């Protein structure tokens, strides 16, 4: 049987990918950010997950305004790296896990979560930066990946409650898959940030730290936060944090926090990172 062993969250700021690709990780601006992932790199090398269920959002790269799926699951065999305008990031092609992805799709749609199914899609920094943070620069990614894209750009995104409940449905789907697989779920994006308008640069460290605390012990309280609170308190783009609730919903009620890291800033964003193990 497939086993969901852990959940991981991290921000997916494009400048982090660029810092790695351009060899800048030792610069004073970037070093403290990357130091917080040293534990994680060693941990995942020992865990060797077979499949990452990777919750992220596309940033007007693969999806323009012609099609705006609220939830979309990547069921394809492989996902090429998108060219976001400066050439594709120099990272390996992402290999899918179509058998599990098709299984999850059928299971959660039967539970009333109406996913969009994607077989051909390119993936942007929202998906590749988390892989880079956890695995560095390998010649091939050492895991298969199910991309799970959430609309957080065209308001409204799905509610935190909906995301949390969807996570639970995804968990039931993984648990009912017959192949013996070690699966992790990642929820990416956030934390507080605002990229637009005269209020650009907003960071709310108190909000972020409370969010990290509650993510461990009291995720129900986070699922109740309305969109407007994220936008008001954590910046208009801080609403990406609803994606972390899909990750948390998929885990056990009780989890063990293995690692946490928080750093301001990466470009315009507060970077948060947490590893939660299913107890």
């Amino acid at each position, binding site marked *: 049987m497939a086993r969901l062993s852990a959940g991981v969250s991290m921000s997916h700021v*494009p400048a982090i990918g660029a810092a790695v690709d351009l060899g800048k990780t030792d610069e004073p601006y970037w070093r403290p950010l990357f130091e917080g992932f040293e534990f994680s790199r060693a941990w995942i090398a020992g865990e060797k997950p077979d499949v990452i269920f990777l919750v992220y959002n596309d940033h007007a790269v693969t999806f*323009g305004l012609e099609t705006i799926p609220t939830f979309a699951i990547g069921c394809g065999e492989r996902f090429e790296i998108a060219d976001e305008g*400066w050439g594709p990031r120099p990272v390996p092609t992402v290999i899918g896990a179509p058998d599990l992805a098709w299984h999850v799709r059928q299971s959660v749609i039967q539970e009333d979560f109406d996913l969009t199914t994607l077989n051909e899609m390119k993936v942007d920094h929202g998906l590749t930066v988390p892989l880079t943070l956890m695995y560095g620069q390998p010649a091939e990614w050492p895991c298969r990946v199910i991309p799970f894209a959430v609309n957080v750009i065209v*308001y409204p995104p799905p509610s935190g409650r909906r995301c949390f409940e969807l996570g639970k449905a995804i968990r039931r789907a993984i648990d009912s898959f017959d192949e013996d697989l070690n699966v992790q779920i990642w929820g990416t994006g956030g934390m507080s940030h605002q990229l*637009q308008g005269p*209020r650009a*640069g907003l960071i709310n460290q108190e909000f972020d730290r409370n969010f990290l605390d509650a993510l461990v012990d009291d995720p129900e309280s986070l699922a109740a936060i309305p969109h407007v609170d994220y936008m008001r308190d954590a910046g208009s783009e801080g609403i990406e944090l609803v994606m972390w609730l899909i990750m948390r919903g998929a885990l056990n009620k009780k989890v063990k926090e293995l690692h946490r890291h928080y750093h301001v*800033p990466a470009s315009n964003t507060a970077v948060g990172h947490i590893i939660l193990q299913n107890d």
Partner: protein
Amino acid sequence: MALDKPYKDIPGTTIFDSDQARLGYHVNQFCMTLMKPENRERFLENERAYLDEWPMSEAQKRAVLDRDYNALLKLGANVYYFGKLFFTDKISFEKGASLMAGMSQDDYREMMVSGGRSPDGNRFIGEKS
């Protein structure tokens, strides 16, 4: 009956909701084309002519030509879309954000390195910190 839009009183912020996405459809789709280098080149050669290929309002075209990003936000453009203009102009997202904030890039970076813009006094229009 109108929808409840409780985010309208957040200062310095335009939420990309249905109204904005409807208003900005063509300007955003124009921005998408700038991900291709040959389109960036053609745009930079004659910006006006390139913009005239799109059914955008004159105000939207003007805001693109002026790189008035705060005006673009009001006219329905979204930052992930007009971010394609940043790299057409070879500026970073940090620089783009500093322009919208009305700060020099150095001052903006200094603010970010010092912990970012505080939410205190910035949650509601007219609020005093």
